[in-house]
């Protein structure tokens, strides 16, 4: 029964990893941009929520009303003002620039907030749980998973059912022709980054409600996000959710064997899947 419990907890943990990964998957899908600062932006979102909560007294989840649009605005500005200039046939310039951004964010947060670990107090939901026979499931992990599913569903609808999604896909397929068809691709790229940052804001608040964070918590979130994206297959958001779940379950089962084995088990399963299916479980991209 301990293993069944571990699998269930792992699946729900996968929801958090999917939240880390969705923004990453989205912008790689739209513009082949690898955002090395993704994890640091999640932590930036967490600190932003912390400031909003302290200033307004709002509940962490209610603070999203402010944090999501703020982060989306930051994402739009960074893409339009900085990252659009790095896009081209070469994947390296955006990687270098976002690596630089990661360093700037970490040290900026260090200066403003010191190395003290922080946490957002979410109240009773943190410890409340639901009994499912012999297993009990925490409400917060359940909510995290549900939010990840709803977000991915929403993004899929946006991509495949709206004019904006049509412009996203056309820009991905052939940016030059998209421009000839009247699509402002610089604006489209910035909108994609804004969406990515809206998801980052949500991921940041859930991270902060579930665990401690400090200015250097970002890189580990980036790794989990990357692993979920690669396991799931590039370009597929549902694949990203599946990748998060695989990673979460691997870690939870690893922890059953030995607590020190938790993170390593996730990495091992990642390598195993990379060896057997180099393009991931559900690749959509060539």
């Amino acid at each position, binding site marked *: 029964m301990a293993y069944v419990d571990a699998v269930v907890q792992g699946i729900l943990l996968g929801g958090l990893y999917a939240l880390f990964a969705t923004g990453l998957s989205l912008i790689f899908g739209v513009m082949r941009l690898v955002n090395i600062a993704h994890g640091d932006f999640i932590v930036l979102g967490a600190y932003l929520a912390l400031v909003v909560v302290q200033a307004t007294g709002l509940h962490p989840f209610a603070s999203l009303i402010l944090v999501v649009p703020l982060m989306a605005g930051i994402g739009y500005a960074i893409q339009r003002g900085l990252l659009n200039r790095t896009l081209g046939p070469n994947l390296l310039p955006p990687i270098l620039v976002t690596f630089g951004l990661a360093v700037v964010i970490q040290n900026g947060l260090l200066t403003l907030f010191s190395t003290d670990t922080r946490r957002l107090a979410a109240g009773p939901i943190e410890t409340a749980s639901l009994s499912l026979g012999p297993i009990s499931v925490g409400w917060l992990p359940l909510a995290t998973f549900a939010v990840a599913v709803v977000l991915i569903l929403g993004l899929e609808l946006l991509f495949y059912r709206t004019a904006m999604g049509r412009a996203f896909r056309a820009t991905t*397929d052939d940016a030059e022709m*998209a*421009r*000839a*068809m*009247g699509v402002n691709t610089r604006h489209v790229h910035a909108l994609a980054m804004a969406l990515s940052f809206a998801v980052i804001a949500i991921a940041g608040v859930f991270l902060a409600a579930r665990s401690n964070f400090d200015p250097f918590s970002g890189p580990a979130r980036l790794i989990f996000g990357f692993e979920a994206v690669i396991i799931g297959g590039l370009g597929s958001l549902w694949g990203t959710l599946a990748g998060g779940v695989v990673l979460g379950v691997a870690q939870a089962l690893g922890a059953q064997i030995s607590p020190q084995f938790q993170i390593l088990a996730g990495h091992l399963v990642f390598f195993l899947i990379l060896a057997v299916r180099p393009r991931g479980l559900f690749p959509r991209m060539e």
Partner: protein
Amino acid sequence: MSDPILSVHGLNAGYGDFQALFGIDLALAEGSLLGLVGANGAGKSTLFKAILGLLPRGREAVTFAGQPIGHLRPEAMLRLGLALVPEGRRLFRSLSVEENLQLAAQGGRRGDWTVERVFDLFPALREKRHSPSQSLSGGQQQMVSIGRALVANPRVILFDEVSLGLAPIIVNDVYAALPAILQSGISAIVVEQDIERVRRMADTLVCLNEGRVVLAGPSADFTKAQITHAYFGG
């Protein structure tokens, strides 16, 4: 003749340090068809890219409806009324047939051409409207590509080698749509390898060789031999 709808003056353009076009002049009269011929590498596609702003060019180098447009970005061209049917069709692969058309309709001008009217012109596309664009035959893809230009209700369409890679009978089908397009008041520049076809269709002929205009004038003024001579740069 009335003022040209589209004209190019002393246009120089290229890729980075490589200059592909040298002092190009041409004028497209409203409601007319201009045939653009030249060997591979003569600069025909480059000229289209430069007109559309996909390559840098001078502000005064391109004039559309009396206004200089050389400083405008490519995404502004379709709204002005300048559409492209690109070489190789270049449909958006992750968009359905209908979505390809809707995207262009959204980026273009309002007018008589709608997605439904394109389906009237090319009935084969109607039943394929929800199919992925890549699942169509080459000829049908070319119809989508032309339809994509039409739904934008342009004043000028630039056709780049619409016959490339298509069977001759399909090419005839595709070109059969051209008179209806011109009758709806659209002017066009057509790049085509089949010199005889161009000479029959076009009001005006321009021949490029190594990035320069080597022959220009009313099609009726030239014999096939003269065009061929200019084409190969004799």
